[in-house]
C-alpha cells in the first residue's frame, strides 16, 4: 500500500446555487481539495468545486471561511 494517498476522513458539499465565487475557500483548504469550477449558477457565479474529495480530512476550515455558509461537512 506504499505510496498510495491516505483515504479521505471526511467530505463536504458546496451549495452550487448559493456560492458567490468569492474564492475564499480555495486557499483555506489545507489539502487543496477545492478549486473554482466551470459551471455558472443561476445567479451568474462560477461556483467553487470540491475537486479532490479523496484528499478531504473533514477539517471544515473551508466551511468556516465561507461568508455565505455554502459548505456542509461530514466525517
Amino acid at each position, binding site marked *: 500500500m506504499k505510496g498510495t494517498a491516505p483515504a479521505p476522513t471526511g*467530505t463536504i458539499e458546496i451549495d452550487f446555487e448559493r456560492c458567490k465565487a468569492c474564492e475564499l475557500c480555495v486557499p483555506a483548504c489545507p489539502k487543496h481539495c477545492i478549486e473554482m469550477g466551470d459551471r455558472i449558477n443561476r445567479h451568474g457565479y462560477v461556483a467553487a468545486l470540491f475537486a479532490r474529495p479523496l484528499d478531504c480530512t473533514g477539517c471544515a476550515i473551508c466551511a468556516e471561511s465561507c461568508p455565505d455558509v455554502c459548505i456542509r*461537512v461530514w466525517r
Partner: protein
Amino acid sequence: MKDKRRETFPRAVFSRPRSLLDVRSHYCPGCHHGIAHRILAETIDRFDVRGKTVGVAPVGCAVLMYDYIDVDFAEAPHGRAPAVATGVKRAHPDRFVFTYQGDGDLAAIGTSEIIHAANRGENITVLFINNTTYGMTGGQMAPTTMLGQKTATSPYGREFRNDGYPIKVAELLATIEGTAYSARVATSTPAQIRKAKEAVRKAFDMQIREVGFSLVEFLSTCPTNWGMKPLDAQKRVLGEISGYFPLGVYKERKQADFV
C-alpha cells in the same frame, strides 16, 4: 456517488447554525459580514438565547440582517443602535440584547451613543464591523478609513491634515470605566475566525453574567468598495489594516463592580 460518500461519513460536523436563516444574503461576494453573522448565530445557539434575544440592526449594509438572524429585531436610526438597545434592555433586563453596527454607524454618527452606552456599563453586546468604508452608500470615507486610502469622498487618499486619523474604537472604549469587555478580532484566516468566536463568546458571557458593556470589533473586508478581489482584500486586512488596528483584548473585567 454523493450518497455513498454520505454513508461512509455519516456525522455532520459543520452545518448552518439554527439561528441563521437559510436564505441567500444580499452581501457582496467575499464580504465578511457573512462570517460575522454566522459567528453571531453560532454563539446565540451555543448560549441557547435565541428565544429571549432582541437584536438592534444598524443603518448600513447590515440593515437587512433581520432577514438573516432569526430573532426579534428592532431597526435603529443610523448610529442610534446603542441608545435603542438601552431602551430595549432597560425594558426587559433579562433579555439578551445586542447591536450590530458598521464603522460609519458606530464611529461617525453614533460616537456619542456608543461612548455613553459603554460609560453607563449598559449590559448589552455590540458587534462592530470595521471595513474602513461606508459600504451601503457606495464606499465613502469612514472614520476608520486608512491614511492614504482612496474612497469615493477621499479620491486623493485620506490625508490627516484634512481628514484626521482612523479612529481606534476597541482601544477608545477600553478606557471607559463602564466597559467590561473590548476586543478587536479579524476573520481573514481560519485561526482568526476561531479567535473571533472566542471573543464573541466572552462578550455574550459578559452580558449574561451582567458584568457590563461588551464590544467586539471585527476587521472586515469590503471587496466591492475597496475595488479588490475578496482574497486580496483579506491580504489587506492581514497587512496594512492589522498593522494600524492591532488585534487583541483591550479590556476584560473579571467581575462587575456592583455584584
